């Protein structure tokens, strides 16, 4: 790890001000950033810890019935308290191990947008809104490819608002070493249609599987998925743990299982 300065603001205003510095970087739970820094693959002159900013922590329900999660809320809190959206709570409960869940945050996960992270699938399938100090970004506009998002330099996620689907489930097939998703699928059924978000599979990061959404919007059943052919293996990740064809196949299997589980 290289030397850095650590600031611990206690209000959002102070945090935003501290992040104006070119050298500054937000520190959520550190569960992605710290290992990278320890391996000397990342360095920041100044780390702005968000863990002391009470106003961006915690879970509530807004007037529209959306589950609103503060950007610095840990996975463990979501797992325990997002009872209004059980599929999301279950997603959070399956991230990493207890140590990771007690520190890692939803904001950190969505900001990082790892192509194999869990939250991006939940946010995209539920059509969540990502809130920053100055604006609100729809999930469909937010994810822009692996490790790429609509966030500007120094812009932090203060809240994520999740519309609650009528039925939903998250099916995660783990990569045996990291236990991140090898492929995971979040299926969310709303009154106006079904959204299917896939993580772990594509080298462009999380994506919506349009064919499955169309099929499921008219027939929300696992059989509707069996009728589809697996998505194109072309842009799929191919690595030690599985090639593109295998991942494409898993997308279909996990989608069908998620639909079954959502019933």
């Amino acid at each position, binding site marked *: 790890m*290289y030397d850095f300065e650590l600031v611990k603001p206690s209000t959002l205003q102070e945090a935003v001000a501290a992040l104006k510095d070119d050298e500054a970087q937000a520190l959520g739970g550190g569960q992605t950033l710290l290992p990278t820094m320890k391996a000397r693959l990342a360095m920041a002159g100044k780390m702005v810890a968000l863990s002391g900013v009470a106003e961006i922590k915690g879970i509530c329900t807004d007037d529209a019935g959306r589950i609103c999660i503060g950007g610095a809320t840990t996975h463990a809190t979501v797992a325990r308290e997002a009872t209004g959206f059980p599929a999301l709570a279950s997603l959070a409960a399956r991230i990493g191990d207890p140590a990771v869940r007690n520190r890692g945050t939803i904001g950190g996960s969505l900001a990082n947008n790892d192509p194999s992270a869990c939250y991006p699938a939940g946010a995209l399938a539920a059509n969540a809104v990502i809130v920053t100090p100055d604006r609100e970004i729809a999930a469909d506009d937010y994810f822009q490819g692996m490790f790429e998002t609509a966030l500007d330099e120094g812009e932090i996620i203060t809240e994520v608002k999740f519309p609650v689907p009528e039925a939903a489930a998250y099916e995660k*097939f783990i990569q045996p*070493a990291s236990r991140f998703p090898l492929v995971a699928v979040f299926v969310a059924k709303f009154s106006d249609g079904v959204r299917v978000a896939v993580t772990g599979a594509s080298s462009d990061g999380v994506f919506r599987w349009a064919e499955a959404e169309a099929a499921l919007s008219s027939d929300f059943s696992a059989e509707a998925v069996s009728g589809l052919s697996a998505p194109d293996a072309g842009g799929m990740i191919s690595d*030690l743990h*599985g090639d593109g064809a*295998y991942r494409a*196949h898993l997308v279909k*299997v996990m989608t069908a299982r998620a639909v079954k589980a959502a019933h």
Partner: protein
Amino acid sequence: MPKDTGIGASPKRREDVRFLTGKGRYTDDINVAGQAHVAFLRSDVAHGTINGIDTSAAEAMEGVVRVFTAKDFEGVGGIPCGWQITDRQGNPMQEPKHPVLAEGKVRHVGDPIAAVVAESAAIARDACEAIEVDISDLPAVIDMKKALADGAPKVHDDLTSNLCYDWGFVEENREAVDKAIAEAAHVTTLELVNNRLVANPMEPRVAVGDYAAHDDSSTLYTTSQNPHVIRLLMGAFVLGIPEHKLRVVAPDVGGGFGTKIFHYAEEAFCTFAAKACERPVKWTASRSEAFMSDAHGRDHVTKIELALDADNNFTAIRTETHANMGAYLSTFAPSVPTWLHGTLMAGNYKTPLIYVNVKAVFTNTVPVDAYRGAGRPEATFQLERVIDKAARELGVDPVDLRRQNFVTEFPYATPVAVEYDTGDYGATMDRLLEMIDRDGFEARRKESESRGKLRGLGLNCYIEACGIAPSSLVGQLGARAGLYESATVRVNATGGLVVMTGSHSHGQGHETSFAQVVADMIGIDENQVEIVHGDTANTPMGMGTYGSRSLAVGGSAMVRATEKIIAKAKKIAAHIMEAAEGDIELKDGQFTVAGTDKSMAWGDVTLAAYVPHNYPLEEIEPGLEETAFYDPNNFTYPAGAYACEVEVDPETGRVEVLSFAAADDFGNVVNPMIVEGQVHGGLAQGIGQALFENCAYDEEGQLLSASYMDYSMPRSSDLPMFQVDHSCQTPCTHNPLGVKGCGEAGAIGSPPAIVNGVIDALASAGHDVGHIDMPLTPAKVWAAMQG
């Protein structure tokens, strides 16, 4: 009735109190006053020419003590290899130099190029980044067969090729084996890869070098399974320090699994640099460094053929293996695919003709050496897989086929040079079948099918050669060391004992089980016996702990030394009680005179030895301290039968292990609880190899599985509750305890059971896949099902 003390009892491990309460003293807990810290600059390319190294910027940094490169090691020896193999033509293997720091070329990712000694570990790392190395990349050789092709880039320019040796065993049998295979009624052929593994002990390697100017002596604290071997190799071959000026200490060691047997460059570096800098120096490996600098394990590519006659008797085995040595020869690397592998190819079976060919190959990868089982898992895996495949091809029951070919008469001389002293393979198989309810399997399979899963039953036998090894024999086979063990038993005046052993525990529980043996022999409480190991300054010469040898060889030395103690104590007791020596009996810590009511307590006799007022001084010396060395006259041959049931998810290829049963014959057992723990650990490692672990390189020689993000370790949630049994006991006939060793069995016996089980599961759905290479990841199993 289970005993509650002595041999056969299961007292809790005394060392666990300190391990579980954070009071263990590991090498990294050792900090010597004034110590500086070491960081290594390691190659990030697999193969390249070093054109120049500019250390000036690093040297100028505040807090840097000194920067070392190969030029500082001119006149210093290379890291030696402890075993020389003679090839099929009778020539010695090709043996390249292994410099402490890379000279002229780098040969694998992780090869140390330079080292910085600095005031802190962080400064040392910063300074490494300030070193400028000019390297021209060379094409790397990673695949063994490509490495042997004409015109392949050479890992070592001064060798004739990348072939370390081409070994044939037993060479005289070659033609007879070829003929038997040509004439066989049936031949089953199997090609397979025994996957490369990273040992991953919980404690990474650490070395602390310390030099004392006042008496010109060096001390090395290191994470080692065999401190005396390190003292000998490093002192005599690398640094030229006589053994009486060199002390090697391996305190508590947090797991080794083989990878802490070997002498490493970092140990020699720290010892050398401590003297050069006149400062103690310390290096602690990061986990990332461990992945690219600890010796790896396995990595064999094999073709085996099993010939059977019309009655399904095995008539011949021919096997050809390419064994990866990596870029340099690690301490015992050449012996693993040869003597530790070829001599086990008979397995539990009376196959009359066997020929083993092994080509050891240099590649631009981390050196490969012994890993839990070392050679024996590679032999067992191919043999037990090919037998299963044969049973499937012939449509016979895999248990019947094995039974029919079992060795049943002992001693049995195999066609691969070893003699099994004792065993009962039918008994362990019977015991296994009692444990697994084989008759109920079809019903369980149907139940799995009703849930959309494919269930398989896999079983196999294994045999291993442990208690390594008779020195004269291994000397003939190329070992540059003897493989005896030693113990000094020191009895104190007040009756307590200190046993100083040359064996060294790195998790096996020696402090508990060794104390049980000595206490049992005298009939005193185990707490009266202290076991001391790990420091060359206060233990007799030992060869260390590996090859399931500590109790069989080290324990035997301890028994011999204790016998000498008892014999002398009896003389003292006879003198004091005015009786004939032959009439003295020792039981429950009391000396009695046969046929009388005279008795003396153990402590009274030991006191007399040190306060010799009434003592046979003309006959014997005062004091009670004895040393014994024990050199075994054969290997020991633990054996057993293992079985598992697995469930495959046909949609994803994921394998779940539902149950695992192990019936082992370890001969006599000193501490059943520790034995079971050893089997559990071995099974976890074997299942890890079969399903999860895979050390992978890309074609350029970059390590793809360089962290736990990509190297998959087995976790408790991946494993079923194990059923283990060691009630079949045919005691070893040639060591005083009748013990055989249990440390490696689980890792040797379990991989074929898992693979056999998965093949069986897939066959139940009509997928006749023949073989899948380990690890059986979901992706591979699924791909195999797609045909």
